[in-house]
């Protein structure tokens, strides 16, 4: 089964996009969405300038680690910045512009066809996922249509999906923060913005649109890549992934567990664990599988070289796994200092770039030169191989540190929220 369809070589992405009539439709939609969201932003910014500035800065800063994490998901075959920006822009401007009237109308329809009570309890759980997941998935489909060659693995679908979701999440969070300011009725105050930032950005951020759309993206990635499968099967998998995204979003927005547990830390943890964790684990499992399949393919390209200067057998094993790549960088730092860590990172990146170029039968000399250069740096520093530590103790120490840091961060955010009256 084909895990990866190598992107074609020849011509720049920019030139390819500009020749695509479909790209100009995307550009027009992005421009229209940008005008609409900017108009809303200007209106809110005029009303609450300080709160607007605070919200924009805080959520823009929050987007940075999310962006970095999503890009790093596909370490081996990184997506072009232009397409990632397009995906982010679709989520931020197009999907949000469509979801505002569509979501409100569907919420009204729940009230009209059901009852106001049904809409109060389940309106957000039914209307928002339905409209928003479709609007965001349309963005992933648009990327696949204008740059099909760059959606060449399921993991690519995950990355573009997550990027669309991230754009949506950031704009929605800013609008929610300004809504909290308006509702507080205390004028242009930053406190409701900070409470919204802690609640929606930190505590609920991980389980939000980035995650849901990544799941939808995995399905669209499968539909685009697995051309050896029957249409029925490809569409079925894409539909199942969409249903998963919708279901995860619906569960998160549903009134289940909203009442009865109070407003304390226990209630918060229960909501995070029961409503947020299942989709998070599902998408992490899917990302892991997609990553491993893609890694097997690209590492397989490098293993055919049998060139120890380019990559050793132990480095091949390390390059295959995200956690082992990180462990190799950490190990280099511990053994030979920060310069070795940087050299290992550059070496791994060049090895990945070389694998991609080999798969496309493209020009690989630039990556070979970079590998030679970083290899000589590592030899000079006395750490010639980019490998992870031979014992597992370092790995466990890093994992324990990550778990403790997460627990402490959640506790700090919760205390801060309580102090701000946001719980």
């Amino acid at each position, binding site marked *: 089964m084909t895990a990866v369809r190598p992107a074609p070589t020849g011509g720049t992405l920019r030139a390819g996009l500009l020749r695509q009539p479909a790209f100009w439709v995307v550009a027009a939609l992005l421009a229209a969405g940008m005008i609409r969201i900017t108009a809303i932003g200007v209106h809110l910014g005029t009303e609450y300038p300080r709160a607007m500035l605070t919200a924009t800065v805080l959520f823009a800063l929050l987007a940075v680690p999310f962006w970095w994490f999503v890009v790093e998901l596909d370490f081996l075959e990184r997506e072009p910045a232009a397409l990632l920006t397009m995906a982010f822009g679709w989520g931020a401007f197009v999907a949000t512009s469509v979801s505002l009237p569509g979501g409100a109308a569907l919420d009204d329809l729940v*009230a009209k066809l059901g009852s*106001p009570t049904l809409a109060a309890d389940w309106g957000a759980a039914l209307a928002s996922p339905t409209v928003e997941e479709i609007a965001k998935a349309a963005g992933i489909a648009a990327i696949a249509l204008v740059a*099909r060659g760059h959606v060449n693995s399921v993991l690519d679908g995950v990355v573009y999906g997550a990027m669309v979701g991230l754009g949506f999440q950031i704009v929605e969070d800013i609008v929610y923060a300004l809504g909290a300011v308006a509702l507080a009725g205390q*004028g242009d105050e930053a406190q409701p913005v900070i409470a919204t930032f802690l609640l929606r950005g930190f505590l609920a951020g991980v389980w939000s649109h980035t995650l849901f759309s990544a799941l939808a993206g995995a399905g669209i990635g499968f539909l685009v890549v697995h051309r050896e499968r029957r249409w029925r099967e490809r569409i079925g998998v894409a539909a199942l992934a969409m249903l998963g995204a919708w279901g995860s979003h619906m569960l998160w927005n549903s009134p289940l567990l909203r009442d009865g547990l109070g407003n304390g830390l226990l209630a918060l943890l229960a909501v995070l664990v029961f409503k947020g964790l299942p989709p998070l684990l599902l998408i992490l499992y899917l990302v892991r599988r997609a990553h491993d399949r893609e890694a097997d393919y690209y590492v397989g390209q490098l293993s055919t070289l049998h060139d120890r200067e380019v990559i050793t057998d132990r480095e091949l094993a390390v390059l295959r796994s995200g956690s082992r790549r990180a462990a190799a960088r950490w190990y280099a730092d511990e053994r030979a200092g920060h310069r070795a860590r940087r050299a290992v990172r550059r070496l791994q990146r060049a090895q990945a770039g070389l694998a991609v170029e080999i798969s496309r039968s493209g020009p690989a000399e630039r990556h070979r030169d970079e590998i030679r250069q970083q290899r000589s740096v590592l030899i000079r520093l006395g750490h010639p191989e980019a490998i992870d530590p031979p014992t597992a103790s370092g790995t466990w120490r890093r994992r324990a540190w990550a778990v403790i840091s997460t627990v402490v961060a959640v506790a700090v955010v919760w205390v801060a929220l309580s102090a701000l009256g946001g719980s």
Partner: protein
Amino acid sequence: MGKVTRRQLTDLLGMLGVVAVLAGLAIGLPAVDAALPANRPVSPDRRYEIGAGVTVLPPSGAVLDVTATRPGDLRGSALFRLGPVRYLIAVRPFHGDVEAAAASLRARITGTPGYQVTGTQRSITTDYGRQGLQGGYTAPGRSGRYAVFVASGLSAEVTVAGADLDLGHRLSAVERSTMSLRFPEQS
């Protein structure tokens, strides 16, 4: 400009399909929504629960607009319409006194471009002895009244809006309804 290939044409058609889906969401859904009636009859003799246990007797001749009515255990809202007059009651958790609640509502009213609070704020007492504050505001082409009550850790905000003539005709019915507001401890 080169020749458009078959693949590019197929992608363009696919993209137009995407546009059609977006149009369905952004234009189609609101059109379906607008085609269906939003008003439901309510009895002026039967208490309507707004949310969090707060109830009110709807004004005579009013209908309930279900698009802005959202009852709930912790908060809620109910929008009644008397012809062109909007009568909205919103209940939410509130930890403060009635002056603070009124200041918050006034800030939101005046936060809307063109809206201004008029006259002085006066005291108001419901049929159940709950004291609140009321006042008036103007907006381009319309006038409004507001009232705020605080009890049982809740605030109930009442806003009434309509053209001067319409409001004048229906204000007494709305005021009678507002006086019937009852908080959970008074049930």
